[in-house]
């Protein structure tokens, strides 16, 4: 934290002394270096993906140092968790990573279920998997679209959002909301799928699957896009593990880790799907200057994950059977005097919930481990000695959502 204060003080000094004489000596020496500037990117900025403030120390066009300042979206969600029973806390989890609300709900619900030993009925589990994977697709569409927008490609953003609108229509039919669903609740799901929803979902998947190759042609393999993102912000696997990165950031650096395979929940062990990992010597269509761990790898891991999500949803739709939607013995649920920490695979990484119960219906401590918070920690390490235009490329590939950074 001292470092941050140091930069702040320097800023004050510069601003309070506007009338500075030209340094004649510097001009005489033929020193053409520009002076160092402290530049503030955010908290209101079109490309910081939310209220993130990045203070950059730049020398001309080169960024020497980056310090992210967070906390602009802090809403005391964890403290509120100490005063609400779990089923009432579900809407608060929606608003943490508001782009993947179903996955947030699922994380908290799985945590409470593990704490209390509840068993989710199979139909509810399958529905959970379907909506979670649909939300993964929607979240990745936002990530891809906004990443293209940061790079100046305006059109894929709208195509991704057009696809996402259809997913949101599906969600609206299921639970009435488009962004913050509160649909997956402790013990199962809140309501049943409406009539014809399954067919509509299949129609959507048939429509969506060929689109991914469209996006690849338009954006992923676009020469200009590749030049802007390949070999930028390279994170080695050791660094990734040391900084606690998860999700596509981890897999984009080559670490083989996906919670859905390693520690499955909600019946994920029954589905057949691959997990895209960035590896050297990939398939032919990967551009030549891509390096494992750069921004393009992370971006492409997300593209491939969408394909896998479609696979999972199709299998889940086929396996859908009639049954109950909620676990038994939910009325008057009391949390045992125990603690649990559960992580699930969010689109952005591993979202973890630590819940400590004390025998009453209300937990005594809820802590959320936001994947974007941990992913953001590497900003200072990786945004050194890069060009100013690379900072949005790196931050965009991290796909942060400030809701779960600040909670």
């Amino acid at each position, binding site marked *: 934290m001292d470092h941050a204060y140091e930069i702040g003080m320097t800023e004050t000094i510069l601003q309070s002394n506007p*009338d*500075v*004489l*030209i340094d004649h000596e510097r001009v005489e020496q*033929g020193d*053409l270096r*520009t002076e160092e500037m402290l530049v503030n990117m955010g908290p209101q900025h079109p490309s910081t993906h939310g209220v993130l403030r990045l203070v950059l120390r730049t020398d001309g066009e080169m960024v020497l140092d980056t310090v992210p300042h967070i906390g602009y979206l802090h809403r005391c969600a964890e403290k509120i968790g100490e005063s609400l029973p779990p089923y009432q806390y579900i809407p608060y989890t929606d608003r943490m990573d508001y782009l993947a609300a179903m996955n947030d709900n699922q994380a908290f619900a799985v945590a409470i279920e593990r704490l209390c030993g509840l068993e989710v009925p199979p139909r509810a589990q399958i529905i959970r998997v379907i909506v979670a994977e649909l939300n993964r697709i929607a979240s990745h569409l936002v990530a891809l679209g906004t990443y293209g927008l940061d790079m100046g490609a305006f059109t894929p953003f709208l195509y991704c959002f057009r696809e996402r609108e259809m997913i949101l229509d599906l969600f609206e039919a299921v639970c009435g909301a488009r962004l913050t669903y509160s649909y997956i609740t402790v013990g199962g799901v809140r309501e049943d799928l409406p009539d014809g929803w399954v067919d509509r979902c299949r129609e959507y998947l048939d429509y969506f699957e060929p689109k991914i190759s469209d996006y690849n042609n338009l954006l992923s393999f676009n020469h200009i896009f590749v030049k802007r993102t390949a070999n930028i912000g390279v994170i080695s696997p050791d660094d990734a593990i040391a900084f606690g990165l998860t999700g596509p950031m981890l897999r984009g650096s080559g670490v083989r880790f996906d919670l859905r395979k390693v520690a499955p929940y909600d019946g994920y062990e029954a589905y057949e799907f691959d997990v895209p990992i960035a590896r050297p010597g990939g398939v032919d269509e990967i551009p030549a200057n891509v390096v494992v761990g750069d921004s393009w790898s992370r971006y492409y891991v997300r593209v491939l994950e969408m394909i896998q999500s479609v696979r999972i949803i199709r299998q889940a739709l086929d396996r859908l059977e009639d049954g109950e939607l909620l676990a038994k013995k939910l009325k008057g649920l009391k949390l045992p005097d125990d603690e649990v920490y559960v992580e699930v695979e969010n689109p952005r990484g591993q979202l973890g919930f630590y819940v400590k119960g004390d025998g009453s219906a209300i937990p005594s401590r809820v802590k959320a481990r936001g994947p974007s918070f941990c992913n953001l920690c590497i900003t200072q390490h990786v945004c050194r000695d890069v060009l100013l235009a690379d900072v949005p490329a790196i931050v965009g590939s991290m796909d942060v959502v400030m809701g779960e950074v600040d909670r």
Partner: protein
Amino acid sequence: MERRTTNRVLGRRLILMALACAFCGATPLLAGEAGGERIGVTTASAPGGLLEALLFYGVAGSAVVSALAVCFCKNIVRMAVALLLTLCSVAMLYFLLAANFLGAIQLIVYAGGTLLLLVFGVMLTSKSPWARFEPPKREVFAAGAVCAVMLFSLVMVLSRSTWSGPEGAVSGASMADLGHALMTTYLVPFEIAGVLLMIVMVGAAHLARQDK
């Protein structure tokens, strides 16, 4: 400071802008083809007349005023902008003299090249827009003395020479003649200038190279 601009001020500005456009656009008008769309007039001729006098005094006046602004401005960037006005006024003078090519080249080379170089130097080395350039008093005195001597000698030369205008209408050289001359009579200076510019570019690139 934030100020609200009234409609009256905006209207005044619009009129000013329109006049400025007309003024700037009117200058090439006198490049020989006084009066409308005619085909086939390829050589320029410099006519006399009231309009030319008006334009000359106006443009020359603006050149002098902006040159003085360059000398007396304390703000570096305003100095650069005043220099831009000076160079554009000189370009307009060239157009008035029916030297179209030279005027256009003046715009390209000076206003679009040399001035940008100056502005880059200013921007990259000054710390804020309000950086002031205040040379010490003895430098001002010395420069003033030198300029006074030069002014005196210029005035003596101007007042003692007899100015005779050109006989009849002046027709500027056509582009083909210019090119031919550059490639035959003045080939050596042309090539030397090119080599010199290349040396300048290479030197600048070398100086600006970061030692990594």
